[in-house]
Structures are given as structure tokens and as C-alpha cells.
């Protein structure tokens, strides 16, 4: 380790006190405003108050500080327990790549890249920025396909990238063995930097704009009063503040737990190794492209004439489960035996390195989150407590963009783009168990470089929340997926039928469950199916007086002042008119409402309602998700099954659509039966107190037998809802989508008495016209058997021009076509957004780009009315009666 120490220093010249000693080394324009407060002497007192306190002096924390002051904030204090950049930042491999699984992540990386490039000029601090470009290699066709998909997604963002042949790889990087490659993605814009230097530069720039930086200052806990951040207690005194930002990296979980009101920051550390070599006999050029060989699980970049190469192994080593102090991270041990597979992969990729001499093996812990996406935003329950952490080994790539978004969030209440997939509110306390995190990150870390195909599910940390019917369904062949910790059936494998093993079932093409789901869909259309939808988030809002109604009228765009027993589909909009939530609200009684929201809204919706709820002891919000099992009886015969079980006529005449009645089903009384489904098929939702769940299910199944009842799963549901053009929040809808953009103006009651949230924005939009429009695209000329299936995130072209991106897709068994949902937008000749009219949509030739291959598509603004079986049946009946009368 001894010689290693030197080399790390070469990689990581973070020596903050130097800034104090030689301020002259900084450009003159910064000198006057420098306020670096290295507190080795501990004599410098902390300020008594500040507006924002940031905890964590790594690249993320400094980026947040940098962007806050850029947005005009003053009184920003940054606290670091050790030295700036002494955590993960210090050992960062220094690669900035836009090749990320989510578009918003690529966007952040792209921004970071641009920021780091100009940082040197802005601050005068050398950042080691070299635009090397990067090469993502594919050893097999599936990987190549995933790279092509990435390429078409990056093109939407305007990032330049090329799909290239192996021989072009050899041209760009002569050391690479290309014999086992099928192709590669070249990203010329990617770069390498020295992460500690970027950290340094961001600190210098922040300090120049007034950020006060204190090293060797640990945050003990955050003081919260009435749900708001009030102050930060440190080991050197307390600072009063309005906002607190937890950028503590590896220690963010710990810091969250130490708060008075515990904040769950679900992340966990894993050891991460990379190798440094001495210069090659013919030193490797500084600007040699970065190599990312995901099939070999390694990356490699040029480093001081040699190679820096690390990877994400199959068997990661989780650490710090018990929580550790700062000292540990400085003292991580190398583990060559653990590194062996990656070394072998490296030598296979670059056989010429065999004679190259080892400099050091660096062990640099990284923090990972349960879904491989970072944690960003305001925590539920504590206003003013923000988090930015859990970078999943992409801290450097994300820091710039993420810092910008978080600063916007603090400033404007939300970032300039939808970051739902990164929002910390997608998690709750239930993802905070140390055991869960430890197990899950062991799956997440290898996943970084695994082939990510549509419809993959995490295998670890499962069976946390289950419906009471779980075992019943499991024995009937259910295959499970997980949403927000809840097990949901994907489909039911009939007895005697076998599916492929998990590993082999990975495909971008037609999946092995195709016929199974097809049969379930058919049953939903023609007979009746049961889908267990217990995972839905269910709230009850009650009050003594009108408070509940008043609150909902303010939050919801639709009119909630309906007779008792009515169900209202409505959005909860923000000031921009965008969907914060899309839910169904049932008026149970005059002053009590039952709110049904998507599963992953449990934390987000709760905090949204709480945020706007007056503190009135007579107004009460309760999460009753766990109290009810939800069964969806779907299909034309659903009414027959139910009426047989309840001795009540369930025909539309007696039980019109969007109604809710408490009634008996079998022996069980007090079941909330609602005449609605989430797919547009006829049917009923049954909200059953959990102790009755098994009874009701058994009754339904036994009575339903003669109507051909069977279980169905979420894949059938998904196919049904997409072919009917039903948008789902979180997938199609986000906080930047308004009801007008997705054809739901009919659910907005502008003329109701209450001025609901987002009304002004919608009124404005109604006058100006929408600039993007939710459409349904039916793929033509797409061979289900042979062509790559659409997923989501595919670019949409209109008359050869990029106009949008898909948000979800499914195979419609009824249309026997693939249906993609997505948004179209239009621009004027000057590039400004133009109104998207029905005319614009109807008069265009559309193509959807799936992994580089363009498939013609028909765009539709409205669903096929013929798909609604009820109407179809009525039509059939008519034809039949005509026939009989003849």
C-alpha cells in the first residue's frame, strides 16, 4: 500500500489547505471573494445562521453549492466532515459518459460534461478535462441491440453518437482486441477529468460567489420543528437554516437516520475496484477513448500513459452495513483475488497489456440504491430537507446536472424537467431496511453492466409486501414482479407449461409468455378474469365538516362535489397544470373520500396531499393501503359472477358505470364494489377488508367457473390499457404533462366553484394551444415474431423529422399490432414550440425508431371505439336480433 499512497495522490491532488497558503495561485478575479475556511485550527467559528446548509464536500455537494449561488442564493454554507472530496470523489475513476439507462440521466451527464469543460476557464483550476470520447463495445447481438437503442435515444437528446463496426474500434483504439466484437457505440463527446480537481474547481467557484466552506465539521443531526428544517447541529455548534441538503454520499443513510425525524435515504455501499498500471512501453495517448466493455464487465481509460481499468463484478462486496466512520474509507484494502475476473476480462480485451506493469489496485467504495437510480429531491415529511446521493458509481457524470436540478428544485419548487425516476419520494421507509439494502445492492451493482432487456425484475429483496392471496395465486402458476415492495402477478403459467429460465428469457424480441398473456387477454375480453390489484395506494380522507371536500376540490381538477357513491377520475395538478397524481376518488359519504392512486404514489401522493392540507384536527388523512385487498373482476361476464354472489342485479341499468356500493359478496359483508376497471373493459373493482380476501376470492373463483373465470396478471392488464389508450401516471404522465396534452380535458372542470391548483396554467394553455400531444401509434409492417419489440423511449419521426418519444408500448392482441403511446410536439420554423393540432397529427407519416430501425406507424388521437367490448357486444346483439327478426 505504501507506493500506492503516492499514486493516489497523483490521481487525487486534493490538498485544500494549499488554497489558503497560496491564494495567489488563483486567478485574480476570484481572490477578493475567496472565503475558504479550512478549520484545521478550529478557531473559525461557524456562522449562527444561513439559508442553506449543505452537508458533504464531495463533487455532489460542491455542485449543489455551485448551482445554488448561480441561481442567486446567498448565505450558503457547505460542511465537510473531513477534507473536501475526501470520500468517493477522491478515488473516482474520472469518466464522464452519457451512456446511461435513463434519458434524464443522459441529460444530466451531458450537462455535466459541458460544465466540466468550461470550468477550467471559469475558475482557472485545472480539471484535467480531456474530450476522449468513449467506446461501448458489444460482444453479442443483444448487447449491440441495446447500444443501438441507446443511440436512438441519445439522438433525441441531441447527443452525437455513432454505431460503428469492430474495425472502426480498432482504428480508434489500437490496443483493443476486436475479434469477439460485433460492433460498438462511439460517443465522441464523452470525456475524462480528474474528479478531485473538478471538485476543487466547483468549490473555488462556489466560494468565489459567497459559499462558506467549512472542513472538519461533522453534522450531528438536523433540527426539525413543525415539519420544517430549523437548524443543523454540528460538532462545532449549530447553524440555523431554512434548507438542508444531504449530500453525504456513503454516509447519507446514516445522516438521515440521525435526524430527529428520521429521513430514509435508501442507499448502501459496495466496494469497487480499479487497477492502475505504470505507463506502457509505448505510453498510451491521453486522449485515447474510454472503453466500456459491459459484456466483460469492465471499463478502461488512459491514465498517465498507462491504463486505469475497473469493473462491476457479479459478486460485489457490500460494506458499511453497520455504518462506519470516515476513517474506514481511507483504509480500504485491495483484493486481488476478487479482481481476477475483471483482470482477465481486461487482458482478453487488450492482450497487449499482459507485459504492462501494475501500479496499484484501488478500492473505492461506491453507494448504490435499490433501483440503480440516484436519490434526489425533498424528503417526504420534512420541508426543506433535500437529498442528493446514491449515485450508483456515476457520481462524476451526474454531479453537474443533478446539482443543477437540485438547485432548481430548492429555488423553484421543482426542477426544469421531470425527475420522477430519480425522486427520493419513489421510496419510503419500507426500502430503508439495512438487510434489504445490503441484499438489493448486491444485485444492483452487477446490473450496471448487465444487459437490460424489457420487463426485467429485481430478484432480491422480494416478497416484502404481499396480498393475502399470494400463496393461492402462486400455486396457480403466478409469476411475480415487484412494485414498491409489493408482489404483483405478471401472468399465470398454466399447469404443464414451462417457461424459459430467467436468464434465457431475456430478449428484445417476442417473449416466451406471449401466448399465455394472449389467452388471459382473450378471457378478459370474452369471459371474466380476476386480477389482484392490492398493491394500489389507498387513502381515506375524512372530516367533520366540509374540509375534506374543500381540500379535494382544491387539489383535483375534476369536480368532487358529486353524490355519495360516485367515482371520479381526476388528476391532482401542480401550478403548471402538470399531473402530480392521477387517481380515482370515491365519495364514500358526505365528508369522507376514498382515494385510489398508483402503487408507487404511496409516498409522493401522501406528501403532496399533506403539503396542501390545512392543519385542522377535524381533517384526517389515513393510508389504508394495507387494509384492503383489491380484486378486479374484468370482462363481460363479471356482472354475472357478482350478481350470483350478491343476489343483486349488476347490469348497467342497476349499477351504472363509475359507481361504488358497499354490499355483500358471498358471506362477506361490507365489500366496496366499484363499477370501474383500470383498462376500459367492463368490470368491477372489489375493495375487500383483508380478512375477507380469501373467502371472496374463493367464492368468485368457484362461482365464476361456469363463466370461464381465470386469473390474469399485470401483463394482460397492460396490453388492455395501452390498446385502449389509457395513460398511466409515472409512465406516460408526469408532473410536466397537463390534462389538455393527453386528451383529458373532460376531466377538468374549469367552472367548478373552487379555484383548483393548476387552473390558471390550464386556462392559459387552452387559449395558447398545447405544444405536445399524447398520441397512440399503431405499428405497421412490424413482424411480431421477427422484429425487435418496442419498449419505451423510442423516437417518433413525422415526415422524417423527430417529433417525440414513446412512453409505453404493448402488443394489442385485439388489433394484432404493436401499440405505442407517446408524445408528439411541433416546432415553428424558428425553432420555438408550435401548437400541436389535430390536423398536425392527422396529416403526417409516422415512423417509430426501434433500435435504429424505423417502423411506419399510424398516429391516433382517440382509441378505437370498437375495442370497447360493451359497445361491441351491443352491436353484436343488434346484429343478432336483426338476424332473428329476418
Amino acid at each position, binding site marked *: 500500500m505504501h507506493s500506492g499512497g503516492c499514486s493516489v495522490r497523483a490521481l487525487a491532488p486534493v490538498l485544500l489547505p494549499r488554497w489558503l497558503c497560496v491564494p495567489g495561485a488563483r486567478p485574480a478575479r476570484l481572490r477578493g471573494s475567496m472565503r475558504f475556511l479550512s478549520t484545521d485550527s478550529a478557531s473559525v467559528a461557524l456562522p449562527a445562521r444561513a439559508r442553506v446548509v449543505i452537508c458533504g464536500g464531495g463533487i455532489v455537494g460542491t455542485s449543489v453549492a455551485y448551482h445554488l449561488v448561480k441561481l442567486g442564493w446567498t448565505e450558503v454554507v457547505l460542511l465537510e466532515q473531513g477534507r473536501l472530496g475526501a470520500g468517493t470523489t477522491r478515488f473516482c475513476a474520472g469518466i464522464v459518459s452519457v451512456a446511461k439507462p435513463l434519458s434524464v440521466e443522459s441529460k444530466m451527464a451531458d450537462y455535466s460534461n459541458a460544465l466540466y469543460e468550461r470550468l477550467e476557464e471559469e475558475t482557472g483550476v485545472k480539471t484535467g478535462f480531456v474530450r476522449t470520447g468513449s467506446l461501448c463495445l458489444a460482444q453479442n447481438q443483444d448487447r449491440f441491440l441495446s447500444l443501438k437503442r441507446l443511440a436512438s435515444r441519445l439522438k433525441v437528446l441531441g447527443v452525437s453518437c455513432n454505431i460503428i463496426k469492430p474495425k472502426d474500434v480498432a482504428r480508434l483504439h489500437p490496443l483493443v482486441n476486436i475479434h469477439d466484437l460485433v460492433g460498438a457505440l462511439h460517443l465522441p463527446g464523452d470525456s475524462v477529468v480528474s474528479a478531485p480537481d473538478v471538485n476543487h474547481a466547483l468549490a473555488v467557484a462556489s466560494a468565489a460567489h459567497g459559499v462558506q466552506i467549512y472542513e472538519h465539521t461533522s453534522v450531528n443531526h438536523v433540527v426539525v420543528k413543525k415539519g420544517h428544517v430549523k437548524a443543523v447541529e454540528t460538532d462545532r455548534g449549530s447553524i440555523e437554516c431554512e434548507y438542508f441538503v444531504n449530500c453525504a454520499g456513503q454516509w447519507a443513510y446514516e445522516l438521515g437516520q440521525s435526524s430527529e425525524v428520521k429521513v430514509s435515504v435508501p442507499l448502501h455501499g459496495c466496494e469497487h475496484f480499479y487497477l492502475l498500471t505504470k505507463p506502457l512501453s509505448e505510453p498510451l495517448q491521453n486522449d485515447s477513448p474510454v472503453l466500456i466493455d459491459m459484456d466483460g464487465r469492465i471499463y478502461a481509460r488512459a491514465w498517465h500513459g498507462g491504463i486505469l481499468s475497473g469493473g462491476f463484478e457479479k459478486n460485489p462486496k457490500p460494506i458499511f452495513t453497520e455504518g462506519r466512520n470516515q476513517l474506514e474509507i481511507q483504509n480500504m484494502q485491495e483484493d*486481488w*483475488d476478487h*479482481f481476477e475476473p475483471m*483482470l482477465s476480462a481486461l487482458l482478453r480485451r487488450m492482450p497487449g*497489456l499482459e507485459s*504492462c*506493469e*501494475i501500479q496499484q489496485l484501488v478500492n473505492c467504495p461506491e453507494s448504490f440504491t435499490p433501483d440503480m437510480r440516484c436519490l434526489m429531491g425533498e424528503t417526504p415529511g420534512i420541508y426543506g430537507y433535500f437529498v442528493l446521493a446514491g449515485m450508483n458509481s456515476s457520481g462524476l457524470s451526474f454531479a453537474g446536472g443533478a446539482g443543477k436540478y437540485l438547485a432548481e428544485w430548492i429555488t423553484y419548487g421543482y426542477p426544469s424537467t421531470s425527475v420522477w425516476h430519480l425522486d427520493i419520494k419513489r421510496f419510503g421507509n419500507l426500502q430503508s431496511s439495512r438487510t434489504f439494502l445490503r441484499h438489493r445492492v448486491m444485485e444492483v451493482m452487477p446490473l450496471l453492466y448487465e444487459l437490460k432487456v424489457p420487463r426485467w425484475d429485481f430478484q432480491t429483496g422480494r416478497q416484502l409486501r404481499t396480498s393475502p392471496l399470494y400463496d393461492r395465486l402462486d400455486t396457480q402458476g403466478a409469476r411475480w414482479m415487484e412494485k414498491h415492495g409489493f408482489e404483483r402477478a405478471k401472468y399465470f403459467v398454466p399447469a404443464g407449461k414451462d417457461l424459459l429460465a430467467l436468464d434465457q428469457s431475456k430478449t428484445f424480441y417476442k417473449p416466451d409468455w406471449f401466448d399465455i398473456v394472449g389467452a388471459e387477454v382473450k378471457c378478459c375480453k370474452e369471459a371474466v378474469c380476476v386480477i389482484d390489484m392490492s398493491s394500489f395506494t389507498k387513502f381515506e380522507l375524512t372530516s367533520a365538516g366540509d374540509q375534506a371536500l374543500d381540500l379535494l376540490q382544491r387539489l383535483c381538477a375534476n369536480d368532487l362535489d358529486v353524490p355519495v357513491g360516485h367515482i371520479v377520475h381526476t388528476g391532482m395538478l401542480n401550478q403548471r397544470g402538470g399531473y402530480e397524481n392521477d387517481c380515482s376518488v370515491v365519495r364514500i359519504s358526505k365528508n369522507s373520500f376514498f382515494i385510489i392512486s398508483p402503487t408507487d404514489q404511496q409516498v409522493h401522493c401522501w406528501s403532496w396531499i399533506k403539503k396542501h392540507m390545512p392543519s385542522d384536527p377535524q381533517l384526517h388523512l389515513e393510508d389504508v393501503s394495507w387494509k384492503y385487498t383489491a380484486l378486479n373482476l374484468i370482462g363481460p361476464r363479471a356482472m354475472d359472477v357478482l350478481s350470483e354472489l350478491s343476489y343483486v342485479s349488476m347490469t348497467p341499468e342497476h349499477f351504472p358505470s363509475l359507481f361504488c356500493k358497499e354490499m355483500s359478496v358471498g358471506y362477506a359483508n361490507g365489500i366496496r364494489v366499484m363499477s370501474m376497471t383500470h383498462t376500459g373493459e367492463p368490470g368491477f373493482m372489489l375493495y375487500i377488508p383483508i380478512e375477507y380476501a380469501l373467502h371472496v376470492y374463493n367464492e368468485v373463483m368457484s362461482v365464476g367457473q361456469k363463466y370461464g373465470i381465470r386469473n390474469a396478471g399485470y401483463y394482460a392488464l397492460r396490453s388492455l390499457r395501452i390498446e385502449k389508450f389509457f395513460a398511466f401516471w409515472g409512465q406516460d404522465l408526469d408532473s410536466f404533462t397537463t390534462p389538455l396534452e393527453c386528451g383529458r380535458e373532460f376531466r377538468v372542470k374549469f367552472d367548478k366553484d373552487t379555484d383548483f391548483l393548476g387552473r390558471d396554467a390550464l386556462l392559459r394553455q387552452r387559449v395558447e394551444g398545447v405544444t405536445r400531444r399524447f398520441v397512440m401509434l399503431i405499428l405497421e409492417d412490424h413482424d411480431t415474431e421477427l422484429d425487435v419489440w418496442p419498449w419505451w423511449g423510442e423516437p417518433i419521426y413525422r415526415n422524417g423529422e423527430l417529433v417525440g418519444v414513446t412512453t409505453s408500448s404493448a402488443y394489442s392482441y385485439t388489433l394484432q399490432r404493436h401499440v405505442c403511446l407517446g408524445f408528439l410536439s411541433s416546432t415553428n420554423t424558428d425553432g420555438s414550440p408550435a401548437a400541436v393540432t389535430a390536423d398536425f397529427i392527422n396529416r403526417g407519416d409516422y415512423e417509430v425508431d426501434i433500435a435504429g430501425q424505423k417502423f411506419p406507424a399510424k398516429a391516433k388521437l382517440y382509441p378505437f371505439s370498437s375495442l370497447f367490448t360493451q359497445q361491441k357486444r351491443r352491436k353484436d346483439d343488434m346484429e343478432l336480433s336483426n338476424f332473428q327478426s329476418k
Partner: protein
Amino acid sequence: MAATSQVSRVIRGRRFGQILVPAMTCQNSSRPPGPCINATQPHSFEQRWQHQVRGYRTSPVWHTHYLTPPQVNSILKANEYSFKVPEFDGKNLSSVMGFDSNQLPANAPIEDRRSAATCLQTRGMLYGVFDGHAGCACAQALTERLFYYIAISLLPHETLMELEDAVENGRPLQPILQWHKHPNDYFSKEASQLYFSSLRTYWQELLDLSVPGEQPDVAEALVSAFKRLDNDISLEAQVGDPNAFLHYLVLRVAFSGATACVAHIDGNELHIANTGDCRAVLGVQEPDGSFSALTLTNDHNAQNESEMKRVLSEHPLSEAKSVVKQDRLLGLLMPFRAFGDVKFKWSIELQHRVLESGPDQLHENEHAKFIPPNYHTPPYLTAEPEVTRHHLRPQDRFLVLGSDGLWETLHRQEVVRIVGEHLTGVHQQQPVSVGGYKVTLGQMQGLLQERKARISSTFEDQNAATHLIRHAVGNNEFGMVDHERLSKMLSLPEELARMYRDDITIIIVQFNPHVIGGQ
């Protein structure tokens, strides 16, 4: 055929049996003296062997029948035993962490024995391996008796007084030894009374000789115990016993033989008393993490020059050519020191007298009746041990006691390497560190892949002795365990096994470097 050549290689590489009995069988055989003339068993065995060789060559069953890995494991682990010295307050205060032992039979029944015990009246632990020949009776007697003789020899005068006083007054005895036995390690009940009275006679003599306040010297005690026990074995056979069964037993003990290697560990003091050709080797960890072997015993056989000199010097010059023939004592016995074996110790007259008065069963025993050739100036054999004293150092990590079945198959350096890596676990054993050395990526890859291969074979065995046996029996020419070979060696029929390997008995004592380093 690979299998056959492998087998023949094994045969040629081995010498069978420690005793050469009636040359008659060899004379009957028309074959020139080859490796198989050394067979211990009577001629019927020889014939069976030839028959089996033929069967082996022709029968396809032999080629197709392989033991599965779990079957192999159950054979290897049948006799394994582990003992961890109990901890106090989470700390092990003993210089010994514990031991692993195991044995793999080749003879049926096995002629090797092992013992391990903690001395309760004094400090220290005792470990012993005993390699019997011409039957297992003598080795069995050693495993039951020798440690008591040693423990008694180590007792100070006062404790001996208490012992004698307790027996005298019919009070219960303070236990002297705490045994650490595998369930298969039996003690015979029938002889216990006889053994006890001999032991009591011994401590009564010790009482007369010792002085109060004097601490017995360990080395002297070991020598005294060895010699005394051998003497008692000899005497009991001469005196006989009214009980015919016991009488036959004591004769069998005396006429069979056994070598012994016993370790006594008390704190940092390690004493090894060795009689014969078992061996004790110390595993020493070098500063670079590798292990080297330090042999603590001398084999008492023809390969040992000073032993040769000793044996020759004890007999007249006229016998110089006949005392050691074909590297064997009187052309018969491989070890030059052993317990029992009264045929090499008693005068011819004594042997005849004892045999004639003995029970009838004895007369059917050809081995007993047979008088070694050129038998002029007995005794030719002694049980007196050679004692080695070693002061344990922090780098001394473990001690391997093994019967010659182990040392014939594996070089001591290899033994120490295998055990060392098993005990430390390759992964936690010195992690690879580049340090200041020049290492290329290619070299590192080679090293890592080798370590990986080693790890996978280590994980099968919890018990280091089992692991060592797995290597001893299954190693291929690259020093890796070859399952096919292992399976073949373990599936040999009883009567064949002895041709390919000897009984193997191993005790591996692991030292506690914290205690040893701290003292």
C-alpha cells in the same frame, strides 16, 4: 491404458508392510523378487492379488464404477475429528487453538491408532500417532496406555501421593487425562484392570524414586514412560493371565508391534518423543506468507545413518551383514525401534516357553511361531524414544503428526503447504500485494487463477487432516486433487487397498500465535 499404468506406477512407488514374514511364499513364487514380494499377508493373499490384477485388466466394471464426490467425501470424513480448545472470556489462553485429526484405513482392520488428550493434573496436551504392524493389538494398547504412563511420569511427588492414597482408601481418583476421541476410537474394557494395576505399580516405583518438591523433566518423563510401557507389555506376556482371553490379548499385544510419535505441548514448550518411522513436522510461516517445513523427528530406519550405526554397534561384528538386510532389521522389520515385537527382543528360549504355555489360538499364528533368521544376540529392537525439544515461536503455526502412510505419498514441504493454505484459507491467507515489486498484469493473472483453483479444492473440507488425506490419495502429477484418481483409490477392495497405499493417520495441531507471540 492410463488407469493401469497409473496403478502400476503406484505399486512400484511403494513398499509394503513393515514386516517381512516367511520368505516361504516368495520361494514358492517363480517370479523374480519384485515389489510384491514384500507382501505382509500369507500366501493366499498373494494369489488373490495376482488374480485381482487379471480381473482388473479385463473387467470393464473397474473402469466405469466411480464414486460420486459425496461418496468420496463420506469415506474421507468417516473418521475425522476436530477439537477447539475452549475459550474463556472470548479469549483462548492456550498456546493450542485446537486440532484436526483423521485416518484412512488401507488394512482391514486399520492398524494405525491415534490419541489426543489434555493432562488434567499437570498442564499440557498430548498427541500421538501409532502405526501398528503384524496386527493392531500393540498399537491399540499404546493408544489406551501410553498417555497414562506419560502423565504419571510428569506428576510431581505430591500428586502421586494423593493418587496412591486415593486408591489405597478406595476414594475416587482425580481424572488424570481428558481424552479427545472420535467415536470410532474404542478402548477395550477387558484389559483395563490389568492395565491399571501395571500403571499403579509404575507410579508406586516413581513414588519411591522421586523426591517431594521436584518437578519431573519432560524429556526424561517421556523416555521413562515409553520404556516402562514396553517393559510392562513384555512382562505381562511372560506372566500371562488366568483369563484365557486376556492371556491371548497380552500375547497378541506383545507379538505385534507399533511405532509411536507423541507430542507434548505445554505453553511454548513442545516435546516430541518418537519411536520408529512416524514423523512430526512443524509448519512455519515465513515473512512472505508461505509455509516451510521443520522436521522435529528422525526416522528410525535404514535410511537414518546414525540409527544404522547404533544398531550395528549393539551387536557383534559377525552379525554386521545379517542385522540389517534389504534395509530391514534382520531382513524383516522396517522400523528400527518399536513397541512390542517381542520376537525381536526376547531370547529364543523365552519365545518358545511363552508360546508353548500360551492359549491354543496362538499356535495357529504362523507369525508368532516364526523365529527371525540369524537371531543370535537379542534384543535387536528397543522402544526407547528419541526426544526433541522445541521452543515454539510465533511463526510456528501448526504441527503435523503423521504415520508413514502420509509421508510416503507427500513430501513434507507439500504437506506443510497444503495444511498452511487450508488453515489460513487462501483468500484470507496473505492477500496478494504488489508492494514495491515489479509485477505485470499477465503474471498477476496467472497467480490469481492459480489461487482460484486452489480455493475451490480447499472449500470442500472443514478438517485440515481430511484435506491432507484428500491430497495424499488424490493428488495428480500437478499437485492438484484429481477426483477420478481419488475415486479409484478409495473404491479399491479391502484386500487390494494395502497394495496401493498404507494406513494414513494424521493429527494437525494448530497453535495460537497470539498466546505464543505474547509470551
